[in-house]
């Protein structure tokens, strides 16, 4: 669809006629946001929850369906098939707003042709040549379309064939959801979509933390687009973020392969040594992203100020370049193999809640130095002192810097609705604690001082970096940088005058504007207006409450809330529409469309930018302006259409294809990262989650929270408990090829065995919140999970695993074998070249 954010906003869930929650324990993990689900329910909406466990969310839902963890694409794919075969999709929406009518190239081959692989697979490199995953073009280079949906290779018919074997019976035999339950849910979804009604989907890490995580979410987009629920009130796909500022963290780019504002990080794997080359390989010629040069140049001006000039490419060469996969998991292996010297851990606890936590902790023994900034000492910062370790043998120099808590600092957080909300400081930081902002500002200042006398060209990025966040007018700790000034720079300003820029439409590619994060432009539109501080609510869209990117739009792609002619699909679902008399888009939200571009504006063939889109193409960020049911070449590494693969560790064989697992998924087969390859030894499905009462180290030290869920526990069904001699409330051991953990057993009928292809499959669940420090403590499932990951976004697979269990307690941890032989060919270097697909 085009943007890295939920298409909807949380309070709008109250306007839904049906809410499907899958891959999320909404009520437990997001209890405050769940109030809007309850409001929808009170207004008569049907709430559906699909999950391996019967949770507090299920308890509030109208329909609960238990599912075998990791099989969601079978369920969602079967919905796609059911909607197409029964002609229950929203025909006008699908034909106007998606690429359903685009004709796919003749040389594209699907998974049914190649038993689980798409065309272009290269076994030698373990990756796809995605050239054939594209559309047929005519002599003028225009995509061939068939609005009648009769062409056998139009996307809708490709989907129809692709999902033909994803039947209700396949759902029952693979997911464990009975045929009757599946068709009941399908009927409800279809009945609550269309002109008059809308259905919302909500998901969280229960969909993402899989070896095909991106494809799980993609498949939900297929269903919602076929139902015509994107861009409309009470519709959309709500990506529920797990922590308060997760959305902000990706917007401002803590991800290694992105610059702030979803600009790609320059890569040495492509030829991008100049700004022109970088733009040539990354800029889309049509659609909104044609504006990319303005955002890149403005960002470089924000980074490097006066030093950035047209003559020196605006200091583009200062930016680091990717030389491979620098994401967390491969870097952890590189650390373990002695190829990482230093490590900052801030607000994270990989030594407990990380996957293969012992790999993380033992890898840290190989560091020269380690810095932890946190409010509490935790399992990561105390790795040198952990059970079984010998501190006298560890040479890592460790620094623990006490961090101010959220109440002790000011600034913004960007929540799950893409909304920035400013919070003030309520208390002075305790003791010698400092804010994260102070630590980084100080680090920058000291680096600048350290290199002040250097004339070496390679030190210019540090010397030229703009780094002026002092504000003598603001009261506060001496040396405390101004969070307001940071936000003002993120928003952007005119370089000549220093005046704030009001909108990203005003950003320029000539160096006359600077902006740290283009999508945030508008949050601080003039010298005194901080819209993140605004708290004006109303009974509608509350556009005066906080500020949401982009341009304070609450529902993304809301052009689709009107029909192709610009009229609301129905009076009941009126949201944004074309005002004929004024000649502009209007409504209760900020239109996500050029304001005066009429619905009947034709697309101009061969034009660039927005002129290439018609007045009826709502998905403005995409090259063709249409939502991508079929994702063309170059955007995803593993599939243009989601296909079901079993989790890497599964007791069940893939019922659809000979290709068992995602062929592009990343695995590390090493002695310190052992997988459960034998389902016979590890027959039970293991899933992980968090609970309401606990977050992690910051709650385990709070007695009021610790008493509510005081010890690590494992949920299992009564039948399995009897079979294994495990008693409720007593200790049990959970084991994998990687390791063991113990927990108290919580035996409950809320966990239920499933029948999968005639085989009894038991699922157990362990919360992620615990560690060995704090009042509430216990082992973490991080001790059990070997690292593996999705090929697109480097997310680990930690929701669908296998294990064995027994009654009793685990043995005390032995001294970790840090010298455990890892053969040379298995070792990893920093930024190792990416075997699976070029960057």
């Amino acid at each position, binding site marked *: 669809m085009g943007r890295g954010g939920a298409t909807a906003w949380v309070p709008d869930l109250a306007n839904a006629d049906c809410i499907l929650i899958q891959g999320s324990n909404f009520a437990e993990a997001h209890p405050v946001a769940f109030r809007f689900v309850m409001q929808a329910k009170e207004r008569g909406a049907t709430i559906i929850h699909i999950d391996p466990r019967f949770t507090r969310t299920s308890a509030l839902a109208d329909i*609960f369906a238990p599912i075998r963890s990791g099989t969601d694409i079978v369920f969602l794919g079967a919905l796609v098939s059911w909607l197409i075969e029964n002609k229950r999709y929203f025909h006008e929406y699908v034909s106007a707003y998606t690429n359903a009518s685009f004709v796919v190239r003749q040389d594209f081959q699907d998974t049914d042709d190649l038993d689980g692989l798409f065309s272009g697979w290269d076994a030698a490199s373990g990756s796809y040549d995605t050239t054939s995953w594209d559309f047929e073009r005519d002599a003028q280079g225009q995509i061939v379309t068939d609005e009648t949906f009769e062409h056998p290779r139009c996307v809708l018919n490709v989907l129809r064939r692709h999902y033909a074997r994803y039947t209700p019976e396949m759902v029952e035999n693979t997911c464990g959801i009975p045929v009757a339950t599946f068709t009941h849910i399908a009927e409800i979804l279809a009945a609550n979509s269309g002109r008059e009604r809308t259905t919302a989907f909500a998901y969280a890490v229960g969909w993402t933390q899989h070896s095909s995580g991106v494809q799980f979410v993609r498949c939900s987009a297929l269903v919602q687009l076929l139902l015509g629920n994107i861009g409309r009130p009470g519709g959309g796909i709500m990506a529920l973020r797990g922590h308060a500022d997760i959305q902000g963290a990706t917007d401002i780019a803590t991800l290694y392969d992105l610059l702030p504002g979803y600009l790609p990080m320059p890569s040495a794997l492509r030829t991008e040594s100049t700004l022109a080359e970088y733009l040539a390989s990354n800029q889309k010629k049509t659609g909104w992203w044609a504006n990319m040069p303005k955002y890149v140049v403005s960002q470089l001006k924000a980074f490097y100020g006066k030093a950035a000039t047209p003559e020196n490419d605006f200091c583009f060469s200062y930016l680091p370049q990717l030389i491979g996969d620098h994401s967390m998991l491969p870097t952890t292996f590189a650390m373990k193999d002695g190829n990482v010297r230093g490590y900052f851990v801030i607000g994270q606890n990989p030594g407990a809640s990380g996957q293969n936590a012992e790999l993380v902790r033992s890898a840290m023994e190989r560091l020269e130095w380690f810095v932890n900034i946190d409010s509490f000492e935790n399992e990561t910062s105390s790795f040198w002192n952990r059970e079984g370790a010998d501190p006298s043998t560890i040479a890592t120099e460790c620094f623990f810097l006490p961090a101010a808590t959220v109440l002790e600092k000011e600034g913004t957080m960007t929540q799950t609705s893409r909304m920035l909300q400013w919070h003030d400081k309520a208390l002075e930081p305790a003791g010698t604690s400092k804010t994260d902002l102070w630590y980084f500002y100080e680090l920058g200042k000291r680096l600048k001082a350290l290199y002040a006398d250097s004339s070496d060209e390679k030190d210019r990025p540090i010397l030229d970096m703009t780094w002026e966040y002092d504000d003598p007018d603001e009261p506060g700790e001496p040396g405390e940088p101004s969070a307001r000034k940071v936000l003002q720079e993120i928003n952007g300003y005119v370089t000549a005058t220093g005046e704030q820029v009001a909108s990203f439409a005003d950003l320029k590619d000539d160096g006359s504007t600077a902006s740290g994060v283009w999508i945030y432009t508008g949050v601080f539109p003039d010298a005194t207006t901080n819209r993140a501080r605004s708290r004006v609510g109303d009974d509608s869209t509350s556009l005066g409450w906080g500020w949401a990117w982009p341009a304070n739009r609450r529902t993304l792609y809301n052009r689709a809330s009107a029909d192709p002619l610009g009229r609301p699909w129905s009076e009941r679902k009126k949201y944004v529409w074309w005002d004929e008399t004024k000649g502009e888009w209007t409504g209760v939200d900020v239109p996500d469309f050029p304001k005066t571009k009429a619905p009947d504006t034709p697309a101009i063939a061969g034009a660039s930018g927005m002129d290439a889109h018609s007045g009826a193409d709502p998905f403005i960020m995409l090259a063709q302006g249409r939502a991508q049911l079929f994702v063309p070449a170059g955007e995803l590494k593993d599939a243009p259409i989601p296909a079901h693969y079993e989790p890497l560790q599964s007791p069940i064989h893939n019922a659809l294809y000979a290709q068992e697992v995602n062929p592009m998924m990343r695995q590390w087969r090493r002695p310190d990262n052992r997988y459960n390859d034998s389902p016979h030894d590890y027959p039970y499905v293991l899933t992980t989650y968090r609970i309401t009462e606990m977050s992690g180290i910051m709650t385990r030290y709070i007695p*009021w929270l610790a*008493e509510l869920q005081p010890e690590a526990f494992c949920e299992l069904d009564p039948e399995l408990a009897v079979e294994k001699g495990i008693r409720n409330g007593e200790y049990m051991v959970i084991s994998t090829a990687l390791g063991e953990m113990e927990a108290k057993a919580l035996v409950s009928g809320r966990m239920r065995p499933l029948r999968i292809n005639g085989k009894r499959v038991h699922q157990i669940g362990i919360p992620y919140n615990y560690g060995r420090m704090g*009042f509430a403590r216990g082992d973490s499932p991080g001790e059990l999970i070997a690292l593996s990951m999705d090929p697109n976004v480097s997310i680990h697979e930690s929701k669908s695993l296998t294990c064995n269990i027994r009654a009793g307690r685990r043995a005390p941890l032995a001294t970790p074998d840090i010298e455990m032989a890892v053969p040379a060919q298995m070792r990893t270097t920093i930024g190792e070249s990416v075997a699976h697909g070029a960057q």
Partner: protein
Amino acid sequence: MATGFFTDTTLCIGCKACEVACKQWNELPSDGFSFTGDSYDNTVELSGTTWRHVAFVEQIAATPDGVEDRWLMSSDVCKHCENAGCLEACPTGAIIRNEFGSVYIQPDVCNGCGYCVVSCPFGVVDLIDSLGGTAKYSTANLQESRLDASKTALAHTGGVAGKCTLCYDRQTLGMVPACAKACPTDSIQFGDVATLRERAKERVTTLHARGETSAQLYGADDIGGGIGTLNAFFLLKDRPSVYNLPERPVLPSTRQPDGYAAAAVIAVGLAIAGWAIFRSA
């Protein structure tokens, strides 16, 4: 005007925000860290230091489609009875009915005799141990939570009875009680009791119309046993006993006539017996 709580359990999501908000506002210590294995309930019951408690009741039929399964959640609290057993039993006058119609324990008047504990028909009131390092809660917990034990209300009042004050201090400032303020789904509603009762009755009608015929009020009307109405009443999805609430609570003092009569009968009986024995002797 009497104020109170309408706890609508059909809206409860079991998040326990009420328990935490209550403890934080009232600076109550934790009750210890032990896993019960009783669903998601690890605080077990109301106590002198737990003034809101969320009960979890699993009713799992385990049918394949899960339609029959229920996981009931309900936040329990002091009922602030119209005729309160604790208030009647209190010999020092520590327990009073305040200007908000709430049953309130004045900690500086309480002498810790414990009569109120056995006189509560709902098992709400409990004695708070002194802060001297009992197993139930320790000063270590308080220190760890960055609370200064010397400043908490309880520091001066160990060995007294404790229960929900209906956030008397907040009410005097015009603020909503902490639990109701924290509840994300309006399962706990605070306000004028008469208004809340009206709202609750409408709500039951709505639920019955939706087919949820087991929905019932607890304590909105006279609950019997001499207790009268409850200023903190509940809307339940099942019988009260399912939530560990008494089906037929009785005010202890209503048993006094019976008790006196029984004593009189026994006295007469003993007199006759004594007379008979002495006579035969």
